[in-house]
């Protein structure tokens, strides 16, 4: 980061104290309970998270008919899975999946804010929320992907999806080569949030 902006010397200590002050006042005033924030955070560890998306992608890799249904009607296919309740809940009311193939690469961005499919992917990582990524991804996607370590051949078509309304997007990455004998569980372990947003490929870890 540049030194263009100045910050208070106790930047993080101050925010730590301020958020605790806010939470304590909200509890005292009867707006939330003492457990509210912890329960929300727990929910994002157990119910909404990229572990759901990874299972969904692995299923699509092993079952071509499921994959076709997922691409045609994403919420209906998600409802077939054995997920916790709520997969059409907050920030998952409307979802669409696009498929990466040898010919086409998809990249998801939200230039106006940071829209992200919560039930399937949980919360967005910092790179996705970065104004610089959001500014550049729609104009020079190949250059951005290259900086993220993904160099695409000129012959591969790039599709950038700007999530500007209520539909939440994610990517069905290509199944990596050499995974023919892997179980669905093993396959799911190869699927990262970055692969499901189109800034990386699913890979067999070295």
């Amino acid at each position, binding site marked *: 980061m540049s030194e*263009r902006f100045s910050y208070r010397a106790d930047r993080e200590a101050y925010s730590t104290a301020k958020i605790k002050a806010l939470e304590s006042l909200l509890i005292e005033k009867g*707006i939330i*309970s003492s457990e*509210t924030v912890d329960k929300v955070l727990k929910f994002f560890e157990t119910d909404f998270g990229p572990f759901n998306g990874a299972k969904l992608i692995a299923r699509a890799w092993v079952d071509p008919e499921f994959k076709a249904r997922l691409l045609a009607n994403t919420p209906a296919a998600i409802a077939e899975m054995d997920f916790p309740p709520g997969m059409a809940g907050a920030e998952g009311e409307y979802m669409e999946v696009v498929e990466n193939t040898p010919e086409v690469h998809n990249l998801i961005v939200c*230039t106006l804010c940071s829209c992200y499919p919560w039930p399937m992917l949980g919360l967005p990582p910092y790179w996705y929320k970065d104004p610089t990524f959001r500014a550049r991804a729609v104009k020079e996607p190949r250059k951005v992907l290259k900086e993220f370590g993904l160099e695409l051949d000129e012959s591969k078509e790039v599709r950038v999806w700007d999530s500007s309304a209520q539909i939440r997007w994610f990517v069905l990455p290509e199944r990596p080569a050499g995974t023919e004998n892997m179980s669905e569980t093993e396959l799911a372990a190869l699927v990262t949030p*970055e692969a499901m947003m189109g800034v990386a490929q699913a890979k067999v870890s070295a």
Partner: protein
Amino acid sequence: MKLQHYLGGLEGLDSEPLNFEKQIFVEPWETRIFGIHVAMMGLSQHLSDTPLQYPLKSIPTTFKSTWTWADLRKGAEAMNPFDYFRFRYYEKWLGGISGFFMQEGYITEEQLDARTAVYLEKPDAPLPSVSEPTIDEQIVDYLRRGDPAIREVDYQPKFSVGQKIEVKDVLSTDHTRLPGYLRNRTGSIEKVYEGAYAYLCSTGPDGLGEPMYVYSVKFDPKNIWGDMAEGNSWVYADLFEVYVEAAK
């Protein structure tokens, strides 16, 4: 005109190469402001009047305001652009959300400052202990059922797949869902989404609020960036019907 509405395509920003930070939270305190935001969303009074008719009136919270994504976004869009770049993602949330509680009269700046001073002095001082499971259950119920935007309407979409459209240059004030870089550009309808989407608030002359159809619109980047566009690529955006008109 707000810079935050025109972020897509903005040049000359710092951090090349990009910062590929994969963490969701980079400081422990950030988790708390996220949790408070979700709580406000789940306790937002407008949820009583949505098709799911959440029982907000009977939830024992003193929160009597409406708080949706639109409110959080309005706050971020209202920021001085220099501050928008200066502050980290959840620093913006902390500023916006604490400002909202003061503006709505739940807390005062003096109370917040005084309490902050206490926790700066004694970081390990405990939070007050008040148990109220009904509040927490409502928030989890909201997470599981969401706030569906689709409403029944008795008219058909104006545009159909393959049709050439032009993006309007509507007057956006405090909030919009029209990315600035697409204004006045031509594209084609890729998909007509089923159902009409209400928005979380009226955006005034910008045009959102009442249910309307939404389209996936495909743009040739050459029509947006000219010779600067990268080859063999396309840009798609989801545009509300009020933002598009038939191409001339």
